[in-house]
């Protein structure tokens, strides 16, 4: 009974939720189509055979590290890079060879790219003037848009007299005043501090909903992608590795790469010692045995990788009377306690010689508050919250 082909994860406890996530707004499902798109710079392949459909009205995040090709993909769609191979179709029309000024989309640049010699008002009106919109209409639309982004009082200022957050809103206003079908956002929150970023995320989502725009966001920040996106496409080395709603990527990653990239992870190398139905046993480092539920069948003796999210693990004092909450209950010693207010991060060296990360929500005062570095503890671990991958 071989587990053939690519590694399949054990499903989390949340299969139903994944389906519930898919309440995507109605719209043309293939509004933007990438068909086998490849981009080469000389010998270097930046984007390789990417095929992807983006729905009208959805927020799609391209997530990846630097050099993953996500920005190049966006720039091809915006008309700034030629396409080496394949086709990009936007609302039924091939974008190849169309100069950026003719495409019905606008881009918000990472650096905001505000024109330093023009006032906020003139920056926002720039695109309308290029389209030959009548003067009176330009004035009204600019004023409306500035009100939408709460910058009415700053209309006469130069970009150099604005804060980072205000500049970001000018850049946004300059795009949406043109009423594009699609808004491309390149690391839109990258230059903002944490608090401002959360506010701005909310504002962006509100504007997206109000105007019914299609958003394509490029980011390297997985938290940003998770909170904003309807769907995420994770890129690595120029290829799309997995596309899906945030919850699907987190709970049902299609590979160890995704599991590791999206969220934190504990990893073990092991060998399957037995499997009866869904109940598998895996021997990992130093003779520890883990009990795992897996719908996929593995051979006895097969090498596997085992993963578990830190928040699925619980930690109890070793002398606690509480009964084990899960099938795996391992002994260990605390090596690190990081109290963050809402949650606490622990690191525990298991008696088997493997260190695991554990994240506990601090919803009530409990005996756990007394756990300190060096304490003997028990780590509980549901068999269902553990994933198996062929090594």
């Amino acid at each position, binding site marked *: 009974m071989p587990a053939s082909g690519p590694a399949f994860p054990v499903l989390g406890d949340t299969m139903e939720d994944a389906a519930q996530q898919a309440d995507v707004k109605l719209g043309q499902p293939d509004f933007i189509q990438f068909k086998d798109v490849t981009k080469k710079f000389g010998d270097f392949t930046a984007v390789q055979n990417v095929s992807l459909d983006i729905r009208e009205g959805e927020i799609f995040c391209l997530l990846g590290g630097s050099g993953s090709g996500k920005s190049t993909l966006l720039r091809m769609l915006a008309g700034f890079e030629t396409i080496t191979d394949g086709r990009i179709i936007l609302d039924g029309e091939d974008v190849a060879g169309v100069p950026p*000024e003719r495409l019905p989309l*606008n881009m918000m*640049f990472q650096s905001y790219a505000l024109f*330093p010699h023009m006032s906020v008002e003139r920056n926002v009106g*720039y695109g309308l003037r*290029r389209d030959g919109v009548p003067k009176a209409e330009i004035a009204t639309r600019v004023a409306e848009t500035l009100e939408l982004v709460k910058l009415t009082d700053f209309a006469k200022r130069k970009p150099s007299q604005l804060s980072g957050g205000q500049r970001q809103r000018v850049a946004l206003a300059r795009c949406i005043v043109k009423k594009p079908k699609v808004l491309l956002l390149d690391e839109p929150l990258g230059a903002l501090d944490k608090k401002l970023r959360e506010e701005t995320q909310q504002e962006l989502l509100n504007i997206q909903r109000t105007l019914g725009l299609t958003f394509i966001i490029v980011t390297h920040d997985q938290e940003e992608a998770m909170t904003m996106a309807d769907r995420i496409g994770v890129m690595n080395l120029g290829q799309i590795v997995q596309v899906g709603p945030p919850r699907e990527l987190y709970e049902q990653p299609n590979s160890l790469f995704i599991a590791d990239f999206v969220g934190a992870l504990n990893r073990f190398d092991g060998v399957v010692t037995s499997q009866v139905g869904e109940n598998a046993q895996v021997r990992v480092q130093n003779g520890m045995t883990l009990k795992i539920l897996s719908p996929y069948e593995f051979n006895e003796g097969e090498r596997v990788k085992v993963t578990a999210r830190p928040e699925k693990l619980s930690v109890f004092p070793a002398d606690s009377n509480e009964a084990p909450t899960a099938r795996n209950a391992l002994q260990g010693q605390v090596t690190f306690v990081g109290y963050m207010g809402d949650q606490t991060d622990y690191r525990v060296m298991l008696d088997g010689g493997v260190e695991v990360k554990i994240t506990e929500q601090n919803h009530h005062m409990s005996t756990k508050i007394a756990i300190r570095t060096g304490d003997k503890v028990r780590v509980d671990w549901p068999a269902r919250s553990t994933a198996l991958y062929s090594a």
Partner: protein
Amino acid sequence: MPRFLKISLWIGMAFLYVPIFVLIIYSFNSSRRGSVWGGFSTHWYGELFRDEKILQAAWISLKIGVYSATGATVLGVLASVVLVRFGAFKGRRLFSSLVSAPLVMPEVITGISLLLLFISAEQFLGWPAQRGILTITIAHITFCTAFVIVVVQPRLADMDSSLEEASRDLGAGPATTFCLVTLPIIAPALMSAWLLAFILSFDDLVIASFTSGPGATTLPMLIFSKIKIAVSPDVNALATLIILTVGIALTLVMLGLRKGRKQ
């Protein structure tokens, strides 16, 4: 050690600027003989403005300066755009070295080669029919362009290219983008480049001497011909005025470059 540095600084500055100070002082000398101090006077400045020849030469130099600075700025900006914005096209390195070669080319060589060019052009094409303001201007544009590129290219390279992309994205074609976004942003550097080219053209003696013809005597050429006979005090006055003009222009160049960098 700091004292040693201070002293060397002053010696160096003296070496550079004492001759110029002496010249300025002697321009207010009432004596006819340049080497003897005969008391303070502004007599020679008055003399200068009554001298038709000098005024005419100054007017010619001014015209040539404006024409060549303008021509060199246009060509220099075009070359800079090609060097900065067109990526690694074939022959870019060769082009880059060729446009900056005039910076280090001995003026005598530039002068002779241009003279030969103008003579043969006249023979085979019949144009330019006569050497004069036009030929000097062409000659000055050739070497001033190199200096314009030196000033404009780094400024253009510093400019965030996403500004131009944003303009395209918002619906402007490449030409509109260049006029409405690129040019205003590099304007301070353009002004500096224009003034620098103007100074270089206004000061030039060697290349102008080779490419000039009858009736086109520039100010430096006139000064040089005057001191070949004898150092006359009105030349000191003239030189002082030129130093003043160049000094003001250079200050503007520096201010322009600093403003450009700040943005």
